[in-house]
């Protein structure tokens, strides 16, 4: 896309600063958005992208600075004002009510609350026209709870378009999409731009930024550290701007795979809500091997993680641990079998926020000596363990007695990693192990996983970030609606080829038939 010198400025941010306690999430950020332009807001997790957009949309109020939309100052702190000014936002976590229809979600809050009826018929016609114009097919009368993730995102976009938004903000919109769905989304965005809309596209995925934007703004630690025309840059330069240093990809030394440590054959699990369960999965985890699991979120990753982690029992199929067989399957049985688990959500499942580091460190082992004997806790032994993790894994914290909620995400993850790895596991289940971490912590976690693999552990790496899976895995499987693709050895498939599998093609004759 070409630059638009002299085009009308539709949005102006001037010196936006936002602090959360001592943390400066946004530091004096200013930029302009012009009519018919797509700018990408690029930055690592925690760089302040979402905060900035939440200020723009009125979820937060800036401590300093002002926003102007179409030349008019935007009153801070009210999504209603932003919507009225023509700003629409597609949130990263969808803001839809599952118990209502698509149309009802779109209509919510559009008229006076006190009017005595919903003007559903006219609204439906408008939604159908917008669907056609922008290539956003979705049934207006469908219950949102029954929709797929891709459809829900279309509803989110329709919500903004229905209110005649002239500026669209999309927060990490591709995180939940297949490469093919991403292409469709980009088509929609190009149609919108052609109709004169302006777009802010938030992402940390470099190839997407290169594909869709005309201008890139790079955020780092809450500061705007760079602004370039997309045509004047490349992925490599953007990556350097984003993290402030050259990224070194983790190195994976050649290593022959060892003995099978766990074998799953024909495993099925019960579906959960909208997400599918496992639908006949065959998988072997081998010593000294990292197996990467690629796939769009919500395709059975959680089911597989919960199965191996002991939280879920299969409805049918064989699950074999070598040399021991799995008996009654539970988190404790999994731990006893030498399975270390790094959960997907470190806040909700990985830690107890109000517990100290010590109490969190022994969460999986408190029943064992030396941390307890005959039901009595030995807190000094537990504290010793916490101190060991803090030292070995470089956990920055006020001390083992501090509540873990005071720690940054990276340090919290290091404690979980230490808790899991210090037990000397045979199998490591790493579910989204670096999501939301800064680059330093990412490297640390990746190196530890590689070291464990080199020491002979089997690692199952589950990630929605295809680049991460490809960089770290000896073997890659793609998961789609509970089915597993064949094993692809390292380097045998391009991202595009894996993307085809992630969209569900290739499964018809293979896993599905089983």
């Amino acid at each position, binding site marked *: 896309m070409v630059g638009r010198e002299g085009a009308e400025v539709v949005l102006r941010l001037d010196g936006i600063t936002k602090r959360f306690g001592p943390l400066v999430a946004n530091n004096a950020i200013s930029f302009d958005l012009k009519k018919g332009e797509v700018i990408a807001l690029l930055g690592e997790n925690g760089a302040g992208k*979402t905060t900035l957009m*939440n200020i723009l*949309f009125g*979820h*937060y109020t800036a401590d300093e600075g002002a926003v102007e939309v179409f030349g008019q100052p935007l009153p801070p702190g*009210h*999504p*209603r*004002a*932003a*919507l*009225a000014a023509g700003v629409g*936002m597609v*949130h990263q*976590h969808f*803001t*839809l*009510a*599952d*118990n*209502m229809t698509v149309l*009802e*979600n779109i*209509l*919510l*809050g*559009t*008229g*006076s*609350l*006190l*009017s*005595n*009826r*919903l003007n559903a018929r006219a609204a439906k016609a408008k939604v159908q026209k917008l669907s056609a114009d922008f290539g956003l097919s979705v049934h207006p009368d469908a219950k949102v709870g029954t929709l797929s993730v891709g459809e829900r995102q279309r509803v989110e976009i329709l*919500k903004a378009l229905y209110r005649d938004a002239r500026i669209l903000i999309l927060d990490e919109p591709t995180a939940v999409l297949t490469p093919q769905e991403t292409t469709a989304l980009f088509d929609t965005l190009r149609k919108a731009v052609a109709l004169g809309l302006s777009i802010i596209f938030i992402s940390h995925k470099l190839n997407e930024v290169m594909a869709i934007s005309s201008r890139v703004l790079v955020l780092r630690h809450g500061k705007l550290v760079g602004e370039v025309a997309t045509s004047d840059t490349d992925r490599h330069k953007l990556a350097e701007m984003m993290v402030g240093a050259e990224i070194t990809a983790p190195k994976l030394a050649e290593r022959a795979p060892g003995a099978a440590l766990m074998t799953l054959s024909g495993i099925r699990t019960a579906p959960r809500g909208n997400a599918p369960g496992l639908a006949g999965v065959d998988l072997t985890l081998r010593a000294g091997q990292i197996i990467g699991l690629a796939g769009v979120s919500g395709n059975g990753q959680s089911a597989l993680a919960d199965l191996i982690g002991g939280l879920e029992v299969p409805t049918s199929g064989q699950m074999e641990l070598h040399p021991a067989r799995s008996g009654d399957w539970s988190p404790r049985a999994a731990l006893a079998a030498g399975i270390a688990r790094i959960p997907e959500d470190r806040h909700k499942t990985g830690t107890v926020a109000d517990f100290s580091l010590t109490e969190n460190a022994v969460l999986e082992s408190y029943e064992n000596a030396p941390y307890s004997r005959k039901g009595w806790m030995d807190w000094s032994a537990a504290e010793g363990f916490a101190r060991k993790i803090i030292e070995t894994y470089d956990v920055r914290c006020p001390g083992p007695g501090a509540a873990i909620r005071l720690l940054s995400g990276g340090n919290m993850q290091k404690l979980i990693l230490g808790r899991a790895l210090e037990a000397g596991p045979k199998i490591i289940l790493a579910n989204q192990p670096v999501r939301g971490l800064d680059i330093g912590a990412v490297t640390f976690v990746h190196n530890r996983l590689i070291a464990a693999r080199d020491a002979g552990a089997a690692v199952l790496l589950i990630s929605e970030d295809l680049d991460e899976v490809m960089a770290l895995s000896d073997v890659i499987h793609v998961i789609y609606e509970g089915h597993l693709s064949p094993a692809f050895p390292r380097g045998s498939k391009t991202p595009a080829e894996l993307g085809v599998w992630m969209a569900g093609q290739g499964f018809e004759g293979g896993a599905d038939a089983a």
Partner: protein
Amino acid sequence: MDLLDILLSATFWAAVIRIASPLIFATLGELICERAGVLNLGIEGIMVIGAFAGWMAVYLGTGLWVGVGVAMLAGMLFGLLHATLTVPFGLSQHVVGLGVTLLATATASFAYRLSLPEVTSPPKITPFQPWEIPVLSDIPLLGPALFSQTALTYLAFILVIVVSLILYRTPLGLALRAAGENPASVEAQGLSVTAIRMGAVIVGSGLMAIGGAFLTMSAFSSFFFEMVNGRGWICIALVVFGAWRPGKALLGALLFAGFDALQVRLQQTPMGAVVPYQVFLMVPYVLSILALILMSRRAEVPAALMVPFNKGER
């Protein structure tokens, strides 16, 4: 008198409707709160304060409808307290609800003793009188049962329709249901979750108070300390039983009132001579527990029930 006689008597059905009326008001009130995402355990106390305030107002000389208004206002006041603590401050809905029940009950007792320090038996007021709807009340069986009730009973049934229409046919109802399912959806569409939830709790509490006032102003004519006697908790069970839908909740209230009316009459039968009366009195509470067990698997709980919403928090 055997079971068939009971079931064929107009007085029985009239009693069913009468017993159901306060439950309908309070259940609708609780349903509105819960649909918006707030569990209101203040219900028991708010019914007590409604029963007291309405009765006291009439005793002091206001008209009956003014008394209903006073009861509703008193309920809304405690609803405001509940809403302030649970919605913007996000305090535990369990603890605040029980606290509001204790406070409202204590306030009613205190005010009663303060205004009538010497009396031993509570004074009576002239309650709402049955209002026989012309023509309809002449239908055999149905007429005396359905169309010879007090105005408050008719109001209860009308309210079921009104609340249904609001919930499913208006923008306000849309916002209310969304607030209880995913408050972020309300916020992102430019509406205030805080305002919607607080409004729901305040209005819902007003309805609960009218339910209480029904006891002193329509069913009986005086105020007793123990008169609400767990009806509030039963209404919470009825909301679950009704799967958070006004129509089904009405059915639940009628079913429940049916059993209650039946147990009173069964006490007069030969069976009543054998079975201790306490067993009959347990029926409502046991039924409520059974209803909760029965619906536990299939009920569609509002997804954000008891989940506080802090604006901008992710």
